[in-house]
Every structure is written in structure tokens, then in C-alpha cells.
């Protein structure tokens, strides 16, 4: 959160980038990349999310680190939930589906 007034050019530029990435991710889904389809889709999604968070939500221009820490901490905690759960699910013997 800042007093920074960003230029409309920057906002439109980010908007174009987001649209392009959306089209790319939809098109790439139809190309067989094996297991990398998922990786590519998530990478693109993360790029889009970063653009929204850094520019539309002004995090890039935040005057203090606290906001960034809140975001990083929340994502880190979510990853804790996902990864430690996988510690169980990834090591069970029974395989499903």
C-alpha cells in the first residue's frame, strides 16, 4: 500500500500480459508435454498471480516489508499443509485409481 500513483500505461501493459498468458495457458494445454503440462500450467498461473499481486495490488511499491511477509508466510503455511500431508499420502503402500 503506497501513495504511489502508477501510470495507466503500466496497468494496461499488465492487463495485456495477463490476457496473453491466459490464452497461452489454454492453448498449451492441448499440446502433449507429458508430465510437464501440469508444471507449465502452474508456472503460468503463478506468473499471472505475481503480476496481479505485485502491480495491481501494489506490493512491489509497498513501503515496508510487513505486507510481503504476510503474503510469504501465508503461502508458506499453505505449502506446509500440502507437503506434510503428502508425507503421509506419498508413502502409503496402497495405490489407488
Amino acid at each position: 500500500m503506497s501513495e504511489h500513483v502508477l501510470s495507466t500505461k503500466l496497468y494496461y501493459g499488465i492487463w495485456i500480459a495477463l490476457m496473453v498468458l491466459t490464452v497461452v495457458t489454454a492453448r498449451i494445454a492441448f499440446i502433449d508435454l507429458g508430465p510437464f503440462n501440469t508444471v507449465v500450467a502452474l508456472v503460468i498461473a503463478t506468473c499471472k498471480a505475481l503480476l496481479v499481486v505485485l502491480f495491481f495490488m501494489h506490493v512491489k511499491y509497498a513501503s515496508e516489508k510487513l505486507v510481503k511477509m504476510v503474503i510469504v508466510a501465508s503461502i508458506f503455511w499453505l505449502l506446509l499443509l500440502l507437503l506434510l500431508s503428502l508425507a503421509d499420502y506419498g508413502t502409503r503402500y496402497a495405490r489407488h485409481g
Partner: protein
Amino acid sequence: MSDSTATSGHGPELLHHFSTAEQQRDAASLGMWLFLGTEIMFFGGMFCAYLIYRLWYFNEFAAGSRSLDIWLGTINTIVLICSSLTVALGVRAAQMGKRKLLVTLLVLTIIFGVAFLGIKGVEWYAKYKEHHIPGASFDASDLIRDYPQIHIDPAHEQIYFSLYFAMTGLHALHMIIGVGMFTYLLYHSMKGRYGPEYYTPIEIGGLYWHFVDVVWIYLFPLLYLIDRKPLG
């Protein structure tokens, strides 16, 4: 989010327990960011369920994903991105005291939001017609017929659609709340309440809206693009 009386963009009276307007603004902003952190964990629980079941039932997830309309999904993603643009431009308009522009942008944002919900409704209705709503009337035989190359267990297919409805439903609920919030902001913008001295509610409303957009940015590939490779 609302504060005490204000006139034509000259900020509210400073709430009694804050010493400066900047402290009040910083507090509101931090408060909204912390709330968004809780929302990450709230949606996160469902992402955890999604992760586990996608690993277990990939075929059923892939089939279910293919049954979603990729055009509508992509259009909806674009609609939300456009709405994020209008929100960001709206915050900027408020910062610069451009009341009419702010009002226009808020109206556009609401229109985009309602459009998203409308398209979502169309998609859900399609799922209803195809008997893909989990429960007694669920029927995955169309998927089994359409994808003979992969083995689909109809019971497990219900897990995919349970998650589909839970995740898009919760997201839609957040959109509805967002549209309500922005209607409130629109009303007060029309009365000239926000300007360079005081635009905090627009800013933190915007943060909420962008967050809901980010959730969709992840939901789109995870629900619609699981496996769209051409089948051999």
C-alpha cells in the same frame, strides 16, 4: 470499512483511537492483508483435498476436466482479468480525485463481476443437465462412453465433481460478496466520499477483489486444463 461522516473526498474524521490518518490507513491495509492471508488458508484446505485426490484419481479428474467448457472457462478468466484492470484503474482514479472516472470504473467492475457469475451459472446448469452433480442423480456414463481409452470409476468421478462444485461455489460466493462490497463503494463514490485524502475503502476493496481473481487464476488450470491432450 465505513468511517464517520465525510464530505466531498476530504476524508473522514480521524477515528478517535488513531493518532494520525496515516496510522489509520496503515492499520486498515494491514488488516485486509491479514484477512487475505486467512483466505489463502481457507481455500488452501480445498486445494489440499484437490491435490490428494488428483494424485489418486487422475483419470477421473482428467475426464471430468474435459467435460468442462474450456471456452466459457477461458472467457470467464478474461472477464475477471478485465475486472481487475478496472479495479486497479479505479483505485488510481480515486487517488487522483477523478470522481466520474471512479464511478464508471466501479460500474464496469460490477458488470464484469455479474457477467462472471452469469457464465458460472450457465456452466453449472450444463453440469446439471449432464447429471454431473454429485449425489443420487449423478451419472458418469457419458464420460465412460466418451473416453474408452482411460479407465474411469464412476464413484471416484463424483470426487472430482464434488471438488469442482465446492471450489467454484466458494469462489462464486466470494465474488457475490465482492459485488456487494463494490455496490456499496459505488454508492458512496457517487456521493463524492472518496478522493486523494481518503480512498482507503476503495483500496482495500480492491485488494479483496484482486485476491478473488488470483484464486480463479489457479482454479482455471487446476479444474479446466488437467488433461486436454489429444487422445490417441
